[in-house]
């Protein structure tokens, strides 16, 4: 038997760490979703789909800018020393994933803006001739390939960074897994494909996005399994952390919301849709996106509860 009593009762720390509330999971979800959309934009641009009026790649960059700004707004709300946020851009700390993220986010905006400028809405072209001139200047084979490459590279970096942000914190065994980077990346891709599936106007594109979402969901399921196997085959603290979702207090939220409602059920619905047994609906994509959000909420919450043995 062991009983440890502390005289300390610091806010956000005791009795259990809860330094990050709703803001960080929302930021991680929106960041991952935008990362996935950037990768899809890069893919569609490389395939030359931007020439088609109905291409979903003309919708995703503008949506991404809005979502990323909302995510960064959530991140800003989480800061305790808000007036000093500019300090992020006075240095580059090579060992800090948050510092990497701050600089990556600074590069993401121009890449998205360039993708947006390739096919700006007609009203913008009419109101601002400069937008039209910029669009014509960028819309060259070299320009499109450059924008596609920038969106692909920065999308992958952003997606992985959202996972590494947590996995670099070795004090919390549940987060301390390199698998979190790929997990958040593939989850972001899946949310992006689900969103594209919902907003695509071209039937062929909707089919493509639904099929690719099914692949992403299957990979996500596999990566979730790898994540748990990795924890269970590691130190005692990591095994204890894994048990928080394997019979512990977070079992229901993890398996029902994240795996069941967020991966398995939409995968089944979309498998039926792409094999033409049922019509395409918004139920599957909405579940995928809700599952992506639930994944971040559960991982952030479980990680804060997990800890090393006190001695």
């Amino acid at each position, binding site marked *: *038997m*062991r*009983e*440890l*009593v*502390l*005289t*300390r*009762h*610091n*806010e*956000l*720390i*005791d009795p259990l*760490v809860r*330094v*990050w509330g709703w803001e960080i999971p929302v930021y991680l979800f929106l960041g991952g979703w935008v990362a996935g959309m950037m990768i899809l934009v890069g893919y569609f641009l490389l395939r030359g789909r931007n020439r088609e009026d109905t291409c979903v790649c003309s919708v995703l960059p503008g949506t991404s800018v809005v979502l990323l700004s909302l995510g960064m707004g959530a991140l800003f709300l*989480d*800061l*305790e*020393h*808000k007036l*000093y*946020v500019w*300090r*992020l851009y*006075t*240095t580059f*700390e090579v*060992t*800090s*994933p*948050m*510092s990497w*993220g*701050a600089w990556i986010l600074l590069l993401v905006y121009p890449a998205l803006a360039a993708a947006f400028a390739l096919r700006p809405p007609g009203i913008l072209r009419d109101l601002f001739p400069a937008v039209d001139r910029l669009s014509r200047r960028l819309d060259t084979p070299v320009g499109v390939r450059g924008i596609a490459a920038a969106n692909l590279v920065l999308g992958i970096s952003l997606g992985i960074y959202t996972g590494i942000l947590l996995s*670099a*914190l*070795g*004090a*919390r065994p549940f987060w301390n897994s390199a698998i979190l980077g790929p997990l958040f990346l593939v989850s972001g891709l899946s949310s992006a494909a689900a969103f594209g599936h919902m907003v695509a106007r071209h039937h062929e594109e909707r089919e493509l996005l639904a099929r690719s979402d099914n692949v992403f969901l299957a990979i996500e399921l596999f990566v979730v399994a790898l994540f748990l196997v990795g924890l269970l085959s590691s*130190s005692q*603290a990591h095994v204890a952390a894994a048990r928080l979702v394997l019979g512990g207090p977070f079992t229901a939220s993890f398996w029902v919301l994240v795996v069941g409602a967020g991966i398995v059920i939409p995968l089944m619905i979309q498998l039926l849709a792409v094999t033409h047994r049922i019509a395409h609906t918004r139920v599957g994509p909405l579940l995928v996106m809700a599952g992506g959000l639930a994944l971040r909420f559960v991982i952030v919450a479980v*990680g*804060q509860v997990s*800890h*090393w*043995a*006190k*001695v």
Partner: protein
Amino acid sequence: MARYGMVIDTRKCVGCTDCVVACKTENQVPEGLNRDWIADDLTGSFPTVHLEIRTERCNHCDNPPCVACCPTGASHVDPFGAIVLVTPEMCIGCKACLASCPYDARFVHPDGYADKCTFCIHRVKDGLDPACVSVCPTHCMTFGDLDDPNSEVNRQLASRPPHALMPAAGTEPRIFYLT
């Protein structure tokens, strides 16, 4: 350059919390928050039980994860004695350092920045011991340079088997407990 650390004799510590009060007074730690605290660690089953009373604080680790994860460089290892410090004017309050510390030794100061034990660097620079060490009525704490083989901390470390907290976390803490 010195590498300051602390040795705490758990046979002498009675958990009186004088060190806690001294720290709060010396450093004007806000109400409800603590830079140091007492841990009563009871193990075993009757009649074979063991009680270790410890005074705990930031371990000023040799491999500090709070410094590695800080995105602005606010958390840093000071050249003076390799003491781990926070520069409030550089801290954005992201709380990554709070999440990265396995000892949960940090907290958010009401003014918004991350705060923690400084080993009373302002006193040490004046040749004094940290406030907690100077007030201890049982003299259970010894502060000094771990790199000086003739220092009192090294004599204490050689006297009985020491242990550090959570060695598996890999942070290489510089506070040692004599059991």
